[in-house]
């Protein structure tokens, strides 16, 4: 048994190195210029490492601006998603009103429709609202998440009634119950939803691609597409690799800091089905 598990450890480690290698190669390429970048056989550790490619990235795209755009948009969307999801979740879990179950079923149904399917009608809607190439148009369609509502409802259903009863006797309003009793008990779920929402928005490509045209409004993924598309038809891969390396640094740091919670969030999202 031990020999077999040793073998599987070795295999999984070698494979892990292979999984990591593309990232190593990305960084290695980004530090090379001239002939070395395209040399055969390739060199893993650059003989003359240089930050020249990084300097050029900053020349071609406004990287700080792209970062800031992505960050602000992600924070706004996540905040809106958490606000709408916790309020709607509370309503579905704790209030009694006509048609509640029917509305909830509609929410669940929208969870099954992938965004790609509603891309075109959503775009037409935004065009009619005159929101093309605006942050509002980027944010509005994703400011609520049926999945987030579903998850918040499930968690709030689990809060014991007794906790609320004393407050109700004291004449607390529903908003008060929501604020001081339900919400504090949902903090772990809010963190999960926040992580998922942030990752999704930060990495989003398709919707920003069809919505945003002005370079100064672009998010980071669009900026990278711009870097690779319009300015480097001449195959300037080391420069592109410098751009992608810079772009993943923040998310990798966040991942390394919170990886347990992040992995758990992906699991929560997966096991809903």
């Amino acid at each position, binding site marked *: *048994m031990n020999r077999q598990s040793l073998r*599987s*450890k070795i*295999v*999984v*480690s070698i*494979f*892990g190195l292979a*999984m*990591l290698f*593309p*990232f190593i*190669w*990305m960084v290695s*390429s980004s530090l090379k210029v001239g002939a070395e*970048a*395209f*040399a*055969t*056989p*390739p060199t893993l550790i650059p003989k003359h490492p240089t930050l020249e490619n990084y300097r050029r990235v900053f020349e071609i795209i406004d990287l700080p601006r792209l970062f800031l755009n992505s960050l602000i948009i992600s924070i706004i969307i996540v905040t809106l998603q958490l606000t709408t999801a916790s309020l709607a979740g509370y309503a579905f879990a704790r209030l009694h009103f006509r048609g509640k179950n029917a509305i909830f079923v509609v929410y669940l149904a929208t969870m*099954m*429709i*992938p965004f*790609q*399917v*509603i*891309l*075109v*009608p959503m*775009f037409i809607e935004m065009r009619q609202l005159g929101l093309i190439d605006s942050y509002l148009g980027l944010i509005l369609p994703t400011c609520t998440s049926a999945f987030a509502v579903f998850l918040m409802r499930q968690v709030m259903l689990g809060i014991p009634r007794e906790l609320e009863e004393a407050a109700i006797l004291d004449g607390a309003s529903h908003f008060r119950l929501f604020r001081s009793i339900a919400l504090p008990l949902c903090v772990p779920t809010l963190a999960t939803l926040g992580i998922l929402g942030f*990752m999704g928005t*930060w*990495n989003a*490509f*398709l919707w920003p*691609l*069809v919505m945003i045209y002005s370079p100064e409004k672009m998010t980071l*993924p669009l900026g990278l*597409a711009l870097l*690779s598309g319009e300015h480097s038809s001449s*195959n300037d*891969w080391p420069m*592109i*690799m410098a751009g*992608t390396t810079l*772009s*993943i640094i923040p*998310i*990798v740091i966040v*991942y*390394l800091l919170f*990886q347990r919670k*992040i*992995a758990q969030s*992906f*699991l929560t999202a*997966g*096991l809903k*089905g």
Partner: protein
Amino acid sequence: MLSPIKWIGLGNFRELLHDASFHQALFHTPLFIIGYLPFVYIAGLSAALALERRFRGSSALRTIYFLPVITSWIVVALLWKWILNPENGLVNSILASIGIDGPGWWTSKSWAMISVIIPSIWKDLGYTMLILLAGLQAIPPEYKEAAAIDGASRRQILYKITLPLLSPASFFVIVTGLISSFQVFDQVYVMTEGGPEGSTSVIVQQIVKNSFDYGRMGYASAMSMILFVVIMVITGIQILLQKRWVNYE
């Protein structure tokens, strides 16, 4: 882009019946699934089985396997476009230095789909592993212990106990993989734009191309409806089969 709206009944759907490039895109999805799903599942399962029990370095390995999952598709696609660059990319340079003339990868009609599939497997493997790991950890250890005491071999335990009890997680991973295969877009858009000669065109890319390059919103919406129906059918089958096949102990 702003042609006046006209009622044409099922005209768009009738046109789809004869649209060779849409048929090509539809046909590419099963092709993608064949090249993607078995590999991402088997690799994810192997990683999960190997990393189930903790050992020195196992959590670092889990971190590494999951790293591509949190990386955006645009970065993954650009990175692999460079690695699989036919002229001086990493793979062909290595092949050249041992005297092999590497293929044209994403510039070649016959290799382009493979060039799109490889990064897809690399990116999604960690997610598959994560779900299957959770599934493995939910299996009560007593079952395996009892079987081991009864003299079952490791192989028997794997096939008779672990895999059947893992079926809910496996089922989930496979169905999610199927559905996401119908939604492939980012990697194709960045790596090949559907080419060369439409050899990597896929449904969502056709939708985007028709609506935003050709301004044919109605036609693209008809394509979206087809996509919607396909995904609903898969989801329906999932719900039906889940009851019958999946072993919840």
